[in-house]
């Protein structure tokens, strides 16, 4: 594992079902992502992107292979240790945001802090700060349903970074947004959320946002079929 790598996946294999019904979703996949890097995983539907994302984020156990995050082999951990890893090291932005509609925006953002057992008022104060980062401080007391899709996406980003994770994982971040909003969100993430102590992995179909990637990993039929480096973004 190179010194700059935050995550290293080695020879990952994942299948579903048994016997004739067995489908291999991920076939001997190995890759690394480095601090300060925005890595895209792209490919057609059914290529194994989401399965790979779940494996590297400690959600889905692979049948073979290992995932090392900051020098810890995560698939040697038990369920509680994995939950702690996700809480402390990994931030998620889901395709459908999965914000609680009955909580206010600031309460949604505070969830990782609450899970870290932070005292309520302190968690709310910090959550407001994160909402400020994504430009939604004035929306703190609104319920998510009263926000636009782009704003909800920003709330989800604020929630993802609230736990100060080193690795951020975005699942189809632009799928529910119009093209312009999607671009703005990813541009915002690139310039405000990504830093040299953090890596971002984005699973997407959306070629309109490829320009923001540092590296694009292409998948087909469960395998990596190539990489593309975006030289415009080289630092």
């Amino acid at each position, binding site marked *: 594992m190179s010194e700059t790598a935050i995550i290293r996946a080695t020879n990952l294999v994942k299948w579903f079902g048994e016997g004739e019904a067995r489908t291999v979703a991920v076939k001997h996949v190995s890759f690394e992502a480095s601090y300060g890097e925005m890595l895209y995983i792209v490919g057609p539907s059914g290529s194994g992107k*989401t399965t790979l*994302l*779940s494996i590297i*984020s400690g*959600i*889905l156990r692979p049948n073979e292979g290992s995932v090392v995050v900051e020098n810890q082999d995560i698939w040697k951990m038990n*369920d*509680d240790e994995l*939950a*702690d*890893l*996700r*809480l*402390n090291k990994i931030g*998620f932005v*889901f*395709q*459908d945001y*999965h*914000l*609680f509609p*009955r*909580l206010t925006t600031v*309460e949604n953002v*505070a*969830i*990782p*802090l*609450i*899970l870290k*057992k*932070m*005292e*309520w008022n302190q*968690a709310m104060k910090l959550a407001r700060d994160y909402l400020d980062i994504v430009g939604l401080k004035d929306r703190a007391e609104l319920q998510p349903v009263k926000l636009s899709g782009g704003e909800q996406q920003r709330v989800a980003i604020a*929630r993802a970074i609230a*736990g100060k994770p080193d690795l951020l994982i975005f*699942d189809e971040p632009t799928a529910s947004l119009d093209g312009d909003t999607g671009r703005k969100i990813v541009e915002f993430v690139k310039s405000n959320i990504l830093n040299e102590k953090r890596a971002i992995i984005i699973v997407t179909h959306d070629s309109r946002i490829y320009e923001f990637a540092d590296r694009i990993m292409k998948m087909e039929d469960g395998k990596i079929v190539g990489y593309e480096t975006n030289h415009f973004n080289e630092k």
Partner: protein
Amino acid sequence: MKPLSGIYRIALKLLMNDKSKFTALLVGITFAVFLMVMMMSMFSGILARSCAPVYNIGAKVWVMDPAVNNTNSSIPMPDYILSASRSIPGVKYAVPLYFGSALLKLKDGTYQAATVVGLDDSTLFGRPEMIEGRIEDIFAENAFVVVKDAEFAKLENPKIGTEFEINDNRATVVGIAKAASSGLFGVPTLYTTYNRAITYIPSARFTTSYVLIEPKSEADVPGIQRAIAKLGYEALTRDQFVKKVANFYTFKTGVGMNIMMMTAISFVVGLSISGQTFYTFILENIGKFGAMKAIGAKGNELIAMILAQAFVTSLIGYGLGVGAASTFIIIAKWRIPDYAAQLTNQTLGLALVMVMIIAGFSSYIGVRKVLQIQPFDIFRG
């Protein structure tokens, strides 16, 4: 830091901010608690009233025919039982008690059924507490003491000096007494002496309804019971007699079974409404719970959230249900003097246990669902 306190707060906000679901849950549990408490209070009131004479007369040991199963269906015993009781070692004293029904002809010519209690002439053992008049006046000619309870008005609110007829005998009210508890059958109660009772009221060959025994000490009671049993009769302590009457109404009449069924139906109603509503609530939020799992929530934290939601809702519903039932009972007793329901600690405790079962059931189905959801399902949509 306060471990889990924020988790509970989030859990309760999730539930309470969903006003329609929260209201439906509260209404369901409140309604179920109200019905359960009402049913059990009614049963408790009926049992208390069925045992009213046992409490009001207050004897420590009651001798009766073994076939007696409630106070009102006493079977007269021969006089030798009284004599035999007095000769049992450990008996301080034993007195006869007459307990029977009579038809009273009131001044306006109408008839009213009443319970007549005939107290031992020499001791007046089991006499009631007087409100008006003196108990000694019970020895006066035709004297009767009327109990001022919920049925008092049925005798046209008599005063000292009021007269009526019992079996063509003149009866005069010489005092008004109070009783700790009213009887079950909705008839007024009159006290007189034993000898007057058996003279005024037509009776069979034997006249002693019960023999009341005062033991020298508690330790003498088992010996007295064995001696009475040898005579072919039964001696019961006050608590045993109360239990016997309660068992009779609970298991040998339809009262216990019917009320138990109604209570069970109320329980099932509460269980289904709250279970179904809570399940729907969990289903609507299942994706979010999955997302929380993905973010890093542990299984025990999610369980704690769901338990907090179910138990807090159940306790609020319990409070509202008990409040509604208490208010109903107070108003009903104020408007209907005969209303028997009484709220006891046992009723409240039993209702709380049932509510906890409802909460446990609701949380169980919620917990099962939430533990089944895998964060991977969230990614797959």
